[in-house]
């Protein structure tokens, strides 16, 4: 090994001599260095103030200890001086990943915004303005645009009260309290063109899991991963994106579990797995469909579970079919399916589905499924995915080994599955596998969707998506729900099997309680609780739809709260060009973003003509996590409260304050001047002590909900379940008669009469790593959802070693809160999937998804094959929605022969940590990963500069040449894949870089429009030497 040669300069030599002089003189004189000189550095936190918080990056929700200068004395200005992990936190146990460990430099980033600023039309610089000026000018823009473009009624006379010419993005790192206030303000203005990061992230998860199990969330919890016997990591890379959550996969391995990673590239998860298998990006359904076929063919099925808890025995309507790549009901002209044939055959009552428990009926779900996947042979899997057949079969065997009572497997996935045109169907396939293996509801099992951002689960829960409302209620649609009565009739389903809980039958209670929160005393039975003041949608205004409207000049204003769409949306060059068509943009953020400075010319990285861009851009500085109280929801649905440690820098304010000031200014304008549809704005309930600054406590209590009148106990009319004004204990108390209010019914229980349940810190393990006394989880503090399915139909745990709950003769009880009617005896036959009207998990998901009740392999929109060997006439998904302008920007494999796929690196979080010095040091410069074979073909050496281009633009980056990406043999040809990490831009303390999302196309998952970032076509050329 190299040893640095000893180089002694003249100066150093003199020093040695001098040092020696000192030493020997002292020795001669009897003075040796005092022991004090050998003392260690003083521990620097001995009396620093300690504050508890939660990491704002990914959804593991690690606990933080923040230390601030001073002891809290009034004369000492608090300043965060150090952050480390909270050892009491049951998930993180003191750990932090490199992002969390570097948070100090986020708080103190030179890119923090300190003052409100404006970029005037055509200007090339920011100008500092006062808060007063900023709020007044923005309020004026809002009112003028709303008055001019608001739609009150449709041509048919349906009141819709929507405002489409201004859109809004909301922040996945903001607290629930900011989220709910945003929901309130935004809908009162009539905005439906809105999304949080879920749209570009885990949208398909919600669709896929809700259509299968009833809820759209990660089924188990981080610590529970350690209870697994087998862990499949596919469509995700938790070691890099969720390092501290991954701790529990490593823990499972230490207890004997096996881990297999299937991914286009050997990544850091693979580095510690038992086996790694390559796969062609965009071919996951072939792989997973092949698993289904193998499990059926080899009878690796948990039969008791499948018969009792899935819809295997349900009979599907006559008329349903699948042929040549198309399900029944396809309308080629519309590019959409008529889904009426995708349903069960019902009994004469019209609601009870017919079943054949013998599974003999040719149209029962089991036989249809078996036939559908018979095509997915191991040979086909190898041919279309590029995964070696023997490796594929080993995964089948691992999974198949869990089709017994006492072995359990789990799946960890994230955006590697969601960000495809078949995103929801990727996840559906795995959800089906887990039902066949009896792994849902089981400790150590489940489908673990690892959410991306610290509070994207919370923002999804709070309905900050175009057509949603809090608690997974739908925003009224003009077609389905023109009136309140229609809404109630169509959103509360009827049970499809006898004796089922069918929980959504309670929808009216949740919805009326929500309307009482929106409009307060103004919501009355006479005015249908203010139903018409909510906007109604005609179609989903997801971000791709909004960008297409912007492209066509139909959007004037864009309010961007804690989101960086220029970096996060696909086809960045087009996004930047479309932003230039806006009249005004308002960016609320703690740090400088490329979105806010889209008008700045940064050379090749952002080649724009600044002077010609007439958009007025306001940049408002907000606080960050360390500077506010509030709760965020981690991937396991835990609402964790955090505490403020210091004031925000400069004039920055909390999001709540900014929103409230803006809303109050707009409301004042409507009160003074009148205008179009002022009612929703003037009637919005605003009961906050300081109207300009609603507190997190006030907002959290509203989300929980409270009684607006005494709530009598139906079992004993002399008693009350809650008295007027009291916080309700749970959602069972909600009423549809206006006597309760709750801003988010699934959060009911988070702040009760007993206080803030989200701030609880009892980390006692109640069994199997379950810590019910830590924070609070929705729904009803249940930690593993569908946990009734961890027991057999008689109420005994499938595996006594994995007893989470069981029937004790009178009730369901155990380490977790039963996700079930607690007093319903097994003999009554109520089934575990209580949110589904049929009570069982869906192998066939009826008409819940737009692109088919069974997943089918379709090629990415940009396919390296240019065909689909399964059905060459239907190459890509027939249910894809793509706008004309975006279709014209699709490339083909003859021009762009390689598959590009984008991803995160563990050193960085999205586009934030490039502003964080510690993370910039750890990964300073943009690079792409290229396999050795392709690199040799192209003469590319490690460290060379390369250009990666797609039909939509190019990026330039350093080359990391690696053995970890192999060329694959697919359908008789060689397919090379190129790895493209995100993270770079021009608002940075790292090296300036290109926006990676210049490359992928603007086309999304059929169901949720989450963009296809994970498989698209590129070319690569060497442009410079290392």
């Amino acid at each position, binding site marked *: 090994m190299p040893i640095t040669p000893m180089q002694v300069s003249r*100066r*150093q030599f003199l020093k040695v001599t001098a*040092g020696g*002089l000192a030493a020997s003189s002292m020795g001669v004189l009897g003075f040796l260095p*005092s022991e004090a000189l050998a003392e260690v550095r003083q521990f620097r936190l001995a009396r620093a103030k300690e504050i508890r918080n939660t990491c704002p990056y990914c959804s593991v929700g690690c606990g933080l200890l923040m230390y601030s200068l001073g002891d809290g004395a009034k004369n000492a200005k608090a300043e965060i001086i150090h952050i480390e992990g909270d050892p009491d936190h049951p998930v993180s146990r003191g750990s932090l990943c490199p992002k969390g*460990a570097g948070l100090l430099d986020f708080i103190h980033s030179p890119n923090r915004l300190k003052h409100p600023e404006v970029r005037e039309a055509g200007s090339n610089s920011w100008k500092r303005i006062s808060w007063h000026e900023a709020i007044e000018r923005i309020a004026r823009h809002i009112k003028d645009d709303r008055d001019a473009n608001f739609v009150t009624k449709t041509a048919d006379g349906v009141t819709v009260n929507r405002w489409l010419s201004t859109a809004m993005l909301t922040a996945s790192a903001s607290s629930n309290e900011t989220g709910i206030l945003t929901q309130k303000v935004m809908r009162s203005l009539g905005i439906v063109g809105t999304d949080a990061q879920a749209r570009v992230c885990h949208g398909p998860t919600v669709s896929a899991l809700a259509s299968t199990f009833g809820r759209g969330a990660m089924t188990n919890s981080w610590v529970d991963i350690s209870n697994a016997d087998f862990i499949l990591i596919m469509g995700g890379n938790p070691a890099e994106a969720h*390092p501290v959550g991954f701790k529990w996969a490593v823990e499972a391995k230490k207890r004997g579990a096996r881990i297999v990673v299937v991914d286009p590239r050997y990544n*850091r998860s693979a580095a*510690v797995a*038992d086996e790694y298998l390559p796969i062609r990006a965009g071919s996951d359904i072939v792989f997973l469909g092949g698993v289904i076929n193998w499990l059926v063919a080899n009878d690796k099925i948990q039969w008791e579970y499948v018969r009792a808890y899935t819809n295997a025995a349900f009979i599907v309507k006559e008329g349903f079919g699948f042929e040549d790549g198309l399900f029944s009901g396809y309308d080629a002209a519309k590019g959409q399916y008529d889904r009426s044939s995708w349903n069960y055959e019902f009994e004469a009552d019209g609601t009870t589905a017919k079943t054949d428990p013998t599974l003999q009926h040719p149209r029962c779900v089991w036989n249809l499924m078996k036939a559908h996947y018979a095509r997915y042979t191991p040979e086909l899997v190898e041919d279309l995915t590029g995964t070696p057949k023997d490796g594929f079969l080993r995964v089948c065997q691992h999974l198949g080994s869990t089709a017994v009572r006492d072995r359990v497997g789990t799946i960890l996935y994230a955006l590697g599955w969601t960000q495809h045109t078949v995103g929801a169907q990727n996840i559906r396939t795995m959800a089906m596998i887990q039902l066949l293996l009896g792994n849902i509801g089981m400790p150590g099992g489940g489908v673990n969707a690892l959410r991306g951002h610290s509070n994207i689960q919370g923002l999804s829960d709070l309905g900050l998506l175009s057509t949603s409302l809090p608690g997974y209620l739908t925003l009224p649609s003009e077609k389905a729900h023109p009136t309140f009565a229609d809404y109630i009739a169509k959103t509360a389903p009827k049970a499809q099997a006898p004796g089922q809980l069918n929980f959504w039958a309670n929808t009216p209670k949740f919805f009326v309680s929500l309307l009482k929160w929106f409009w307060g005393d103004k919501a009355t039975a006479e005015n249908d609780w203010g139903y018409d003041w909510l906007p109604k949608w005609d179609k989903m205004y997801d971000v791709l739809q909004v960008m297409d409207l912007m492209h066509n000049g139909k959007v004037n204003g864009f309010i961007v709260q804690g989101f960086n769409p220029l970096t996060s949306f696909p086809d960045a060059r087009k996004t930047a060009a479309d932003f230039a068509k806006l009249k005004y943009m308002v960016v609320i953020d703690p740090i400088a973003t490329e979105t806010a400075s889209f008008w700045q010319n940064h050379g090749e990285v952002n080649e724009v003509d600044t002077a010609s861009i007439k958009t007025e851009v306001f940049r408002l500085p907000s606080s960050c996590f360390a500077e506010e109280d509030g709760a965020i929801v981690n991937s396991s649905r835990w609402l964790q409260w955090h505490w403020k440690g210091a004031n925000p820098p400069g004039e920055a304010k909390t999001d709540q304050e900014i929103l409230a000031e803006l809303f109050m200014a707009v409301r004042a304008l409507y009160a003074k001047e009148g205008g179009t549809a002022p009612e929703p704005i003037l009637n919005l309930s605003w009961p906050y002590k300081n109207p300009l600054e609603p507190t997190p406590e006030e907002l959290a209590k509203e989300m929980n909900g409270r009684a607006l009148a005494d709530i009598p106990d139906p079992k004993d009319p002399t008693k009350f379940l809650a008295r007027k004004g009291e916080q309700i204990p749970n959602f069972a108390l909600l009423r549809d008669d206006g006597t309760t209010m709750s801003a988010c019914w699934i959060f009911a229980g988070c702040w009760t009469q007993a206080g803030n349940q989200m701030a609880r810190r009892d980390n006692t393990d109640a069994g199997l790593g379950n810590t019910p006394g830590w924070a609070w989880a929705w729904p009803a503090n249940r930690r593993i959802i569908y946990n009734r399915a961890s027991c057999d139909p008689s109420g005994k745990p499938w595996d006594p070693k994995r007893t989470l709950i069981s029937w004790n003769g009178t009730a369901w009880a155990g380490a977790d809160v039963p996700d079930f009617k607690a007093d319903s005896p097994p003999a009554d036959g109520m089934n575990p999937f209580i949110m589904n009207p049929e009570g069982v998990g869906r192998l066939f998901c009826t008409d819940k998804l737009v692109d088919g009740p069974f997943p089918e392999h379709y090629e990415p929109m940009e396919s390296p094959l240019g065909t689909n060997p399964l059905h060459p006439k239907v190459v890509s998904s027939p249910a894809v929605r793509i706008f004309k302008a975006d279709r014209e920007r699709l490339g083909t494999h003859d021009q762009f022969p390689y598959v590009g796929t984008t991803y995160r690196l563990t050193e960085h979080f999205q586009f934030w940590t490039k502003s964080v010095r510690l993370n910039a040091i750890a990964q300073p410069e943009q690079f792409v990963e290229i396999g050795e074979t392709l690199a040799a073909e192209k003469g590319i050496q490690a460290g060379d500069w390369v250009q990666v281009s797609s039909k939509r633009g190019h990026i330039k980056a350093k080359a990391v040449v690696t053995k970890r990406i192999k060329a694959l043999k697919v359908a008789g040809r060689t397919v090379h894949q190129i790895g493209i990490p995100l993270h770079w831009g021009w608002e940075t303390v790292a090296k300036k870089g290109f926006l990676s999302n210049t490359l992928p196309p603007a086309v999304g998952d059929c169901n949720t429009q989450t963009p296809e970032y994970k498989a698209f076509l590129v070319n690569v050329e060497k442009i410079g030497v290392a």
Partner: protein
Amino acid sequence: MALQSLDILRRSATPTPTPQARNPQEVAKLIDTTVCIGCKACQVACSEWNELRAEVGTCVGVYDNPTDLSSQAWTVMRFNEVEEKGKLEWLIRKDGCMHCADPGCLKACPSPGAIVQFKNGIVDFHQENCIGCGYCISGCPFNVPRLSPADSKAYKCNLCSDRVAVGQEPACVKTCPTGAIQFGSKEDMIEVAQTRITDLQSRGYDQAGLYDPAGVGGTHVMYVLHHADKPTLYSGLPDNPSISAVVGVWKGMLKPLATLGVAAAGLFGFFHYITVGPNRADDEDEADHGTPPLPPAKGTKNKERENAL
């Protein structure tokens, strides 16, 4: 005389014995390369705790960054892709001070008290006594210490002696997401390593083993390796590290000579001081060798220094 928060075993260039009656627990850090994901949380936590910030570098075609240890980067991850028995492996090693029981740096160091070995096993550099000669670098069999271009003093991991002294674990240990870094008594760490090795052997790594090299008397930072028979696979971890022969010669022969020289120089210096006055380094000399400015004080002399630099 202050009582130390950590008991001292020995100090560089200091012949007088330290108090030896107390017998504190020997500690060790165990780095399990087989569950290390190379996330660099340890790098970041180390820099955050120790208030270090390296320069923002460049990508040189691999994941390693910073690309080497420095006075501002006391630990770095080193990545190596190998194909062993036809199986691709990404071997990732956290590099940094090994806290040798027989520390070559301390033995090589001519400056009294600049390097201290505590009885718990931590080898700490005390920069206020460091003369910047760089002998510690030559003496280190793992090539760990680095001179700071800012103050010409040597720096390296001190196993967070400030945290350990108050009963805490080092920052890198605490933060490690996968538990690839653990900390405890040396005895316990060897035991943990054994359970890991047994598990690895059950997964086909028949050469899995503990790296605790005898050539330096064992270390207080140990590795679990999948391929303990080939340490060099892990970005050049030495097979059989030992203290450089040069250090041995220095100790045995050169040091007495040097001491004589030093005594002579001392005598000369004494008379020089008496007759001429104190020496001053000229600015050009400092600049030539990249020595940074001293903490600024008042007066024109410092302005010149700033200009010169």
